């Protein structure tokens, strides 16, 4: 029981930190532009595909350095030539634009790389068990994922709160006109934040690609979950996004590892149903079965009972 718990916690931590890498960029972009970027996970996918192509020629480590830069550059281009243009048509147009972009990027990826799953491998350097606990191995690559995520989190935190550029960004979020009057190029800051957010998503893609497989549907799989996190954490709250990422990561991991379900609950309250009961599917439901829908259940509940999210202050 303890070993299951420990490994579920570790896996949940890996997933949660990975999700935070996406969620942090999305939150930053939302606080700046007030638009939820549907295409955010598409840059995660682009990161993985760029890294796959680069790593097949120059190795994994070059990919890790170059692919996020390329993904971030794509993001900056999208902001400069797409989103800025759509901005004048209003919020719905922006949201619909990013939605269309997500659709388009998936098609472009299929056009360039094909529909099949890519054989994107983790580096041999990290292909050893980091430690063995209760006879189960924890791979070094997962440890590396945790390390990178934490490093990025700390780096992001210090840049935003301690550096000069971070303070300008924070000021531009709340008072863009004042910042512009002080002589800063606010549109450039917007483009930069969008680019850096996309690059962060790209990093997530580079390191998640080998573990979660690199295929054209990978953006959709993670995209809606990242959305859920940003909303649950509270739109625009970086700390909220962090809490929600870990919460969702751990929740899913525990649900998958557990072996309880409705039958146990029914036993507990002493009720039983025939197999032919019309709601038989409901009475035999188990927790691992509903693990994929737990984030969405949580999303709906949070939105009903606390529409601002866990740590959000923003009112509509």
């Amino acid at each position, binding site marked *: 029981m303890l070993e299951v718990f420990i490994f579920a916690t570790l896996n949940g931590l890996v997933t949660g930190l990975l999700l935070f890498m996406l969620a942090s960029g999305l939150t930053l972009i939302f606080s700046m532009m007030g638009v*939820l970027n549907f295409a955010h996970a598409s840059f995660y996918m682009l990161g993985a595909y760029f890294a796959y192509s680069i790593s097949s020629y120059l190795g994994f480590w070059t990919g890790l350095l170059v692919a996020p830069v390329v993904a971030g550059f794509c993001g900056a281009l999208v902001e400069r030539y*797409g989103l800025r*243009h*759509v901005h004048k*048509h209003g*919020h*719905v*147009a922006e*949201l*619909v*634009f990013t*939605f*269309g*972009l997500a*659709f*388009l990027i*998936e*098609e*472009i990826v*299929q*056009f360039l790389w094909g529909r099949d799953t890519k054989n994107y491998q983790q580096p041999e350097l990290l292909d050893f068990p980091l430690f063995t606990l209760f006879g189960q191995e924890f791979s070094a690559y997962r440890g590396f994922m945790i390390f990178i995520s934490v490093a990025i989190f700390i780096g992001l935190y210090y840049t935003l709160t301690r550096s000069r550029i971070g303070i300008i960004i924070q000021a531009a979020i709340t008072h863009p006109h004042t910042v512009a009057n002080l002589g800063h190029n606010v549109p450039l800051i917007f483009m930069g934040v969008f680019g850096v957010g996309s690059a962060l998503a790209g990093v997530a893609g580079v390191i998640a690609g080998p573990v979660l497989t690199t295929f054209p549907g990978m953006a*959709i799989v993670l995209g*809606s979950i990242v*959305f*859920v996190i940003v*909303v649950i954490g509270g*739109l625009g709250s970086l700390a909220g996004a962090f809490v929600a990422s870990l919460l969702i990561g751990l929740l899913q991991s525990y649900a998958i590892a557990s072996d309880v379900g409705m039958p146990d609950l029914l036993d507990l309250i002493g009720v039983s149903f025939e197999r032919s009961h*019309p*709601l*038989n*599917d*409901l009475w035999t*439901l188990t927790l691992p*079965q*509903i693990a*994929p*829908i737990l984030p*969405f*259940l949580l*999303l*709906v509940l949070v*939105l*009903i009972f606390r*529409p601002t999210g866990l740590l959000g202050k923003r009112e*509509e």
Partner: protein
Amino acid sequence: MLTRLIPWIGFTAALLILPLLFDSILAISVLNQMAIAIVFALAYNMLLGQGGMLSFGHAVYFGLGGFMAVHALIMIEYETVYFSVTLIPLVGGLFGLLAAIFIGSFSTRKAGTVFAMISLGIGELIAASSLIFVDFFGGEAGVSGDRTFGPLFFGVDFAQNVEVYYLAAFWVLVATLFMYLFTQTPAGRMANAVRDNPERAEFIGYSARRVRFISFCASGLFAGIAGGLFAMNYEFLTEENLNAATSGRVLLMAYIGGLGYFIGPIVGAVVLTLMNSLLSNYTELWMLYLGIMFVLTVMFLPRGFAGFIMMHQMAWYHGKLRSLFIPYLITGLPALIAVLGVVALIELAHTQEELLHFLGIPLSPSSAISWVVVITVTAVAVNATRRSLGQLKKAWEFANEAAMGTRE
């Protein structure tokens, strides 16, 4: 009065005549798809265009209505119930309405991002649950029925697709009429008011939440009717019919057609269904073209195709539309060649075959001449289009300026 009836007479006539003009099996099946898409897109626009609620999960009501309709077909087959299959779309509609009443009771509290996120969450939730609750949704295989049972409707048993088409046409007409009438009711007008300024609507005594709820329920009803039509046409439904992809497609239709106009979603549904079924015969990359078209539409035609047509209203009203014809031709021709050139480039880059016939022109991806020719033609056409924009702008200003001049 008569001028208000003319569009409806034209619409009815088109619905009746189309299957006579295009009577192949393929054409009829495309027409059936169109009928379903029109009702669904119009229902979606009640929400987004008229009510200002952006939904990323409207396929839920379409799908739930459709699943219930298939179950009704099964019940008719096993004689649990006894009614004509012509009423199947209504079964779908009522179930869609029920689902909308339940979900709308908490999701319409706020508009904007909160509503959009709840709709996304509910959509994912229902789509995922449909794979868990196998009894109702049939798991990955889906559920299927047979529309030929039950009492005959004036001797028609709906074994033929054409018969289904006329039934669908009837429901399209009824649904479109009622959706149009809804926009004229106080509830429909208030939906517009709440969309534009919920605060002001609250101040004059309307509950924005209730107004949104009413629109939401009506939209769920008509989405369910579309689902019922789907069930009649295909006789089976799967998880695919209520997942995010279907929700995304209906958003695309309504947006490309034009949200601000009642006929917008109809235009979008027709164009997208045609693209879907015709383009997919010629190229496997049609989804890529669709994505490019969608993004370009959002960027350059924020009011959609219908909005583009309506832009000419002023010039037309003052008889200046003809002066635009030649300038449009001068810009349109090189633009068309440029688009075809880009498509040819994409196809050349994609094809696995040695020889490719593009509009009858043989092109080969391995020959340098093909590439040089296509790139040159495209570059020249793009340049010509850019140069011709100036004269089009002038002509446009002339047409609208002159119109304003006569008005004074």
